[in-house]
């Protein structure tokens, strides 16, 4: 396993994958040890709620356990699991109709503009929670997970320019939130999951 890589970019021993493909629970536990945190971070950032993220990670891992036999090794396992998790998140947002609003103006109007942000315990997820669900998904998948606008356009059934426009508006919204927050010690790390 590569020591420097983090999150979904971490390698996994091929023997562990083979054992997992045969339903070995210890191998699944190892996969969770390596990728569980990255899945959790991605789910929390996309869904914006801890309980929803927990449920999502559970569903994503159960799905992975059920479909790992279909993993052929064409892409790194982490990338495969990341896509599975992101798909599950977007499906969940769709089910909750959070991504139903297509019009960018309407989408950003639905979420209050700049809110007062509590400072006690904050993390990147809290900041991202100030975005509408679809905008948050585009920001996280593009900025933190490295998906291209073309991939996001296909994911959401929209054009690339739509994805770029949402990203730009979302970054502007975050910029406003940061501006309105009280200044304190800026020791922030983004904790990207890749």
């Amino acid at each position, binding site marked *: 396993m590569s020591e420097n890589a983090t999150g979904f970019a971490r390698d996994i021993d091929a023997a562990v994958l083979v054992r997992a493909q045969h339903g070995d629970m210890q191998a699944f536990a190892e996969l969770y040890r390596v990728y569980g945190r990255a*899945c*959790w971070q991605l789910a929390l950032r996309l869904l914006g709620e*801890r309980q929803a993220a927990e449920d999502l990670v*559970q569903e994503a891992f159960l799905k992975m356990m059920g479909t790992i036999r279909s993993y052929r090794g064409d892409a790194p396992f982490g990338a495969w699991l990341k896509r599975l998790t992101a798909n599950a998140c977007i499906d969940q947002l769709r089910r909750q109709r959070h991504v139903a609003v297509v019009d960018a103006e309407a989408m950003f109007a639905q979420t209050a503009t700049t809110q007062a*942000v509590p400072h006690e315990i*904050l*993390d*990147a997820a809290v900041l991202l929670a100030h975005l509408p669900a679809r905008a948050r998904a585009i920001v996280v998948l593009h900025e933190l997970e490295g998906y291209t606008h073309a991939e996001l356009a296909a994911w959401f059934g929209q054009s690339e320019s739509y994805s770029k426009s949402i990203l730009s508006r979302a*970054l502007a919204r975050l910029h406003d939130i940061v501006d309105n927050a009280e200044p304190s010690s800026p020791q922030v790390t983004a904790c990207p999951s890749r």
Partner: protein
Amino acid sequence: MPLPLNLQEVFARWPATVTPLSAPPELWSRITIAHRTRSRRRRALQVLGSASVVLVMAAIAVGMQAWRAHDPASQARINWQARAQALELQLDTLPLPPSDASAAVQTQSELARVDGYLQAAYDRGGAADEIGPLWQRRSELLDALLALRRQQNSSTRT
């Protein structure tokens, strides 16, 4: 101030200390419990499915037997017809004697008559209780003819 170009710049200006995003420690045990529950449910459904298939097949078999028991004509027709066809094949394998004995000639002519009745019954769309006995008679005649042929062939060889 210009807008940030990317999320990292926004994060860099975020005035809060980031708490590490860690999955709750009990999440894996939750996943294993859910996995075990689903596996058990899936196995139970498989067993239930297999049991249902066996039950349905047993019910069909019992139903067929009951139907056959209540329709002896149909059962007889199937059996006598199959038997007659098998006997005919056996008869075809035997060499023809130089001349048939009179008993054989009589049997053959009755066989031809039964064939005629069968044909007429089928043409009329005859019922099972009419056709069944004809197949039975045909089978009996073929049986007799087979015995006569075997007897004739053995006496010709000696």
